[in-house]
């Protein structure tokens, strides 16, 4: 992914809405998206997720659409018992519908090098 495209992804994920987010990743990589699902593009790269803070509403169905740049990073939300391996070269979809407000930390749980311990973020769920 080139710089311009990466910046576009970041902007999309930061709140320009589902339409831009869909455009930011390869359309053919997104499968079975329901009409009411919001798509959030997330880039995983040593040693950061972009964005690393994601705000959702309770009951809102979302698809987290991950693009791993340089490693098969992991994505794990322990308090939701949701995890995925993020294979480079493809978009990995993670679906969730948060039921309860709160903060849910997530992390890379595939050891990816010096700095792995810093690769984390949180999902903030509001009512």
């Amino acid at each position: 992914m080139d710089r311009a495209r990466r910046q576009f992804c970041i902007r999309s994920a930061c709140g320009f809405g589902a339409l831009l987010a869909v455009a930011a990743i390869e359309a053919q990589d997104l499968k079975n998206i329901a009409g009411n699902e919001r798509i959030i593009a997330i880039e995983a790269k040593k040693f950061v997720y972009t964005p690393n803070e994601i705000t959702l509403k309770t009951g809102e169905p979302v698809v987290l659409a991950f693009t791993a740049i340089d490693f098969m990073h992991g994505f794990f939300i322990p308090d939701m018992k949701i995890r995925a391996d993020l294979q480079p070269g493809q978009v990995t979809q993670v679906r969730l519908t948060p039921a309860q407000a709160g903060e849910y930390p997530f992390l890379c749980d595939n050891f990816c090098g010096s700095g792995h311990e810093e690769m984390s973020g949180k999902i903030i769920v509001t009512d």
Partner: protein
Amino acid sequence: MMDRRSFMKLTAIGGGAVFMSGLYGHAPAAAAGKTAAPYEDFYFVQLSDVHWGFTGAANPDARNTFRKAVATVNALAVQPDFIIFTGDLTHTTDDPKERRQRMAEFKDIAAGLTVKTVHFIPGEHDASLDNGAAFQENFGPSNYTFEHRGVHFIALDNVSDPGARIGEAQLAWLKNDLDRQANDARIVVFTHRPLFDLVPKWDWATRDGDQALALLAPYRNVTVFYGHIHQEHHHMTGNIAHHAAKSLIFPLPAPGSQEKRTPLPWDPAAPNKGLGWREVEAQAANDYKLAEFPVAGS
């Protein structure tokens, strides 16, 4: 000649350098009136998380800390039967050549230990980026067993898979090994990561650790010693005691006590604060007396 127990009592009373943890391994065999397997008193030393090659503000004295610990162990009046390093011998690097260089330097320093029976297991910093290849070249198999004075020791590798899995093949190997043990066998497991979910949000867990614990659960005398979390910690799962060791590089915060598991700040007034190693004295009825020591003698 002074025996081991007398020596430990003396150092605990007079030296001030010894901290008796007060937490012991489980003793169900004695409680149940069963006959434990024959054993002899002995002790070993656990060293952990050296992270050789680390540079950073968390330990500006990183080039010397391991050497100081080796000197302190060598100064013990009664030497241990053996020494176990529970992983993260080296700090990770993406460069395979540099990884091997760090392992070679680590081995040179470890070779200075007076005790020559030394066992090693990998941590994720040693093994996760190459599935344990460099570790095995330098230290041999990453999972193995050995017997010592009536205790069956099992070294488990939960780091060569970057996803922190023990894996089906190794779990089958563990089951096969355990099938040959009596239910009251004295079993000690060495591993790097905790086998239980200590703090999953900090990656302080083993993804399939519950399967290993299920295999170990029928055995009444199991104790686990591990590293990874850079601090002394004790926990029970069922009748299995789990003891984490301090590191020899930098301490980490108490489990789950803050958002991120960032190293505790280095204190120039107390450069070895929070670092250390331990003695484990195997006693009757599956009791293990733990004594915590600082990096350098006080």
